[in-house]
């Protein structure tokens, strides 16, 4: 579980401008997802390039 009291200073940084009760609801719902994201963080993928490729020629693509 995420403690809303601990997260208060970060809320503005997140850009999540919600009333306290609503923030608690969102944090509670996020709790289960955060468990999965934390599991993902345990993987060592240092040498793996993300599946995102910047393509500077993209604006020049044309349908043949």
């Amino acid at each position, binding site marked *: 579980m995420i403690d809303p009291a601990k997260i208060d200073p970060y809320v503005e940084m*997140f*850009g*999540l401008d*919600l009333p306290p009760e*609503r923030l608690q*609801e*969102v*944090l509670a*719902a*996020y709790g*289960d*997802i*955060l468990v*999965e*994201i*934390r*599991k*993902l*963080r345990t*993987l060592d*993928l240092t040498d*793996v*390039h*993300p*599946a*995102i490729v910047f*393509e500077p020629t*993209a604006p020049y*693509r*044309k*349908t*043949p």
Partner: protein
Amino acid sequence: MNGELWKQSLEKLAPAIRAGKISPVAITEACLDRIEKVDGKLDSFIHVSRHALDTARTAEREIKAGKWRGALHGIPVGVKDNYLTRDMPTTAGSTAPNLSFPLRDSAAAARLRAAGAVLIGKTRTHEFAWGNVTPPVCNPWDLTRVPSGSSGGSGAAVAAGLCVAALGSDTGGSIRMPAAACGTVGLKATFGRVSRDGIVPHSWSLDHAGPLTRTVADTALMMQVLAGYDAVDPACQAQPVPDYARALGKPVAGLKIGVCRNHFFENLQEDVESAVEKAVADLAAAGAQVIELKIPLLEYGLGAIFAIELSSSTAYHDASLLAGRVPRYQPDVRTLVEMGRLVTGPDYLKAEQYRSALMEEYRKVFESVDVVIGPTTPITAWKRGEWTVQVAGKPESVLAASWRFTYPYNLTGLPAISVPCGFDRDGLPIGLQIAGRPFDESTVLRLAHAYERAHEWKDRWPQL
């Protein structure tokens, strides 16, 4: 051609229409009549086209004049309500105020129109294609149950014979899940195979386009029109498009079928497991070589897809967040859009690194097999309003359970189809998922067609 017209497959209708034995007007009228008669129960269409009959009359004139455009000419097709259309409004399933979408054709709608299809109406989507329930649509096999989602309107409409085929979109399983729940075929083509131009974005790198149909052959015919390069979609690839129909009718003997025993066979309903195991055994008996395998990395997939999907969706809805529109979204979608702010940049990129690693794992798997098969979903259609289901004796949220087996193929972008493989003890359809190598939809279709031909599931219809 005998029987009700609305029950006819695209594969059978196309030559009959070409030969002048069936009129596009007659099949369009049959579908419109069917919508009139049963969609009050299903609520699968949000909009029925005023132009459908005019388009059908034009098709009829063209065909009589010898200008047959192909298999979709004069065929009524439903369009998911997150695809832009020039003559029908798009809502993306949202009733939030001050939202509007342009009246122009998405690339897929344009391709269908150019092929002569009759765009009969817009099928309902879960709001912004986010969820798996698609309210208020009912499942035609049991009106007290959901059609799944987010292409639930397309699934219900095709299953009930309200249109011959329909478009869906798939970010974590949204074509294949309703296909499984409603007893239709649903294909998520390879990422980059079908243009997403003009589909209201949900998550740019996970969104896929594809058809829902009643048979595999019909999916092949739809794909022949939908597939192809489009420079407007940054993900689209200029890969050659094969003749998909040529893949059909071939035996399964000689195909190597991978069965991934971890992840895809964990925590599923007993009837689903039995049906899929029977399908695997049937394919083996037909001469396919079944190879059991494991992909341990799948254990980390849920965090990855959540990180990407949540942050992408929130980025797309950022202007609406700032404008205060998001509280007017449906409660489940509102929560998901708001919580996307909590995903950090490093988490997002870690998820994208994970995708690369998972794609590499699948590449290795496809060195020894031609396809990977398993259940499409661990559960059959659940009751409307039910948020938790019993899976393998334990309660699980439907949000978590429903997409467990489909999202790996959104992360990897691989082509994946759902084809009916039986019914559970309550008479609800079960889906078999077949995934293949990138841009190898042909092998996926080949196996799905061979399985379909050897069984009679497609001949069953819901009683409405």
